[in-house]
């Protein structure tokens, strides 16, 4: 088992390295970083000083390692718009984004998983069909469309909820709803098929035939086994949540990291973009590691020595 985790941690580190490399390559390929970060109006001496300070005259390998070093030290440049350190800008917006994504994650799981389980247990019923259909809606309706539809219905037509800004807790309802609904539908579908696959296994029939009550069969055998593939998709969901947050925050004018990213991209504020990219990478890597740990823990085949993941 130790070996399993070592591999996973190694892979995580490798992903971070790759992301940093990716950022470095894109940064270098796209033009003179000095010009881009300081802007075209910067006077030549400033540009030269910048280049010297950032070692842009050094060979590319030295630059690469320096880049790594700078990132490790948290020197991620300054925002072009207001000159503040990019990392500060990003960090101060994280709470706002978490205020949306954490509840959304919770709701996704709380809605999606039970719905999927129920649908699997009552296959062919009305609920099952409803779940499947909403699941289809979940991945064909993009989050921005869903957001706008919700605004149209709840804010414009019915006037129940505000459509933008961050002033009260009520403002959070629509964004959270948008983030959770799409994902919940997909999660429901996935959970359903995981459950169905498990329920179709011979050992379930055996347990039933042995006289074990259906409830016990489900709780002791089906659910734990279905949990394993479901856990792996949770890690993937973190990624979609992050992407979803970008769109949702933009639609609802919610001042989180996602909105910051969109604005930074539009303004080509590279330091901020870079910073957010790395933040997202760290988040993804951490969540994948957590999923891997959970997976290793849940799947007894991995816990015992000699099993292959």
């Amino acid at each position, binding site marked *: 088992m130790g*070996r399993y985790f070592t591999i996973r941690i190694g892979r995580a580190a490798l992903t971070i390295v790759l992301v940093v490399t990716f950022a470095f390559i894109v940064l270098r390929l796209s033009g003179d970083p000095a010009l881009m970060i300081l802007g075209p109006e910067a006077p030549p001496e400033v540009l030269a000083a910048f280049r010297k300070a950032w070692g842009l005259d050094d060979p590319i390998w030295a630059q690469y390692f320096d880049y790594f070093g700078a990132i490790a030290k948290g020197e991620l440049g300054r925002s072009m718009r207001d000159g503040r350190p990019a990392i500060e800008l990003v960090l101060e917006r994280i709470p706002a984004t978490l205020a949306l994504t954490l509840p959304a994650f919770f709701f996704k799981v709380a809605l999606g998983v039970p719905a999927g389980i129920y649908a699997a247990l009552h296959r062919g019923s009305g609920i099952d069909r409803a779940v499947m259909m909403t699941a289809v809606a979940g991945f064909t309706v993009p989050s921005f469309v869903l957001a706008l539809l919700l605004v149209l219905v709840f804010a414009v037509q019915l006037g129940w909820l505000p459509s933008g800004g961050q002033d009260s807790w009520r403002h959070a309802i629509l964004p959270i709803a948008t983030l959770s609904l799409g994902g919940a539908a997909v999660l429901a579908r996935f959970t359903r098929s995981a459950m169905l696959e498990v329920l179709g296994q011979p050992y379930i029939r055996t347990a039933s035939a042995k006289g074990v009550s259906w409830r016990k069969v489900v709780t002791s055998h089906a659910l734990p086994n279905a949990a394993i593939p479901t856990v792996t998709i949770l890690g993937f969901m973190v990624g979609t949540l992050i992407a979803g947050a970008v769109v949702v925050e933009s639609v609802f004018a919610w001042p989180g990291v996602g909105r910051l990213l969109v604005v930074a991209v539009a303004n080509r504020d590279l330091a901020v973009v870079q910073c957010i990219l790395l933040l997202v990478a760290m988040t993804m890597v951490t969540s994948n590691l957590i999923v891997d740990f959970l997976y290793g823990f849940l799947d007894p085949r991995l816990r015992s*020595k*000699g*099993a*292959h993941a």
Partner: protein
Amino acid sequence: MSPPLVEVSAISRTYAMRSRMFGRAAAVHAVDDVSLTIPRGQTLGLVGESGSGKSTTGRIVLGLEPPDSGEVRFDGKPMAALGTTAWRAQRARMQMIFQDPLGALDRRLPVATQIREPLDIHGLGTPAEREERVRELLRAVELTPAHGARYPGALSGGQRQRIVLARALATKPDFLVCDEPVSALDVSIQAQMVNLLCDLQAQLSLTLLFISHDLRVVRQISNVVAVMYLGRIVEIGSADDLFARPEHPYTQALVSASPAPGRRSAGRIVLSGDPPNPAARPTGCAFHPRCPRAIARCASEVPALSAVGGDRQVACHLVTGAATRDAA
């Protein structure tokens, strides 16, 4: 007399296999110091149970895998290195037919196209000539052009194997390795296949290496038989003689286990112990844990393959000891 078509000298091949995730890599001696010669136009039968290394030997002889040590010479020249252009060109002279004919055929193409493929690959003849050759080959394996138009899924196992055979013969090879070609077929079809092979061999002067675990089949087609156990040859000799008077205890057990008309079932030698595990090879003679006549020496010293009269060679301390005693 012309030199043998195929000369195999002391080839060995070892795989490193991890038995467990945390275990040490176990070395599997799939093939260990195997030497064979196959004269032109003759058939060498290679017999053994699973794990004996016969398939690997077949692949090495054909040049599909490089040996770790030792050499294979074809028609006097060493085998070309795997994957090179020379190797690909050499394929026209030597071919293989496999145990699973369905797996060896592309399900999406009609079989006639697949028979044609070697001709396309090696650029032999004009398109019209290739079509004619395909028809000729279909006739040779006793199938019709209507069969040729079908897809592999629409043919029976025996028919598929004939297609594979026809494809293998397309470039008029000199040498054919048959790796368990009839094991997957019904027993009645097996006999037909073997007869077909024998006929074709006679017609086309083919040299065959016939690999099988089924003694009856091997007996029918082989001139010389080699018996393998855990990667080593334990006995080799002309077919009829070997089956009539097996010398090595393992060969004796094999022969007694395979039914033959006229032989009573009493006197069957049943081997004790577990089937061999290639990853955990016994010391000394690999067969000694199961051998009913093992002596102390068998556990410590590996017996060498030595001549015991006629063209027979046996790797057994008891047999060679007795032979040298007799000769003395």
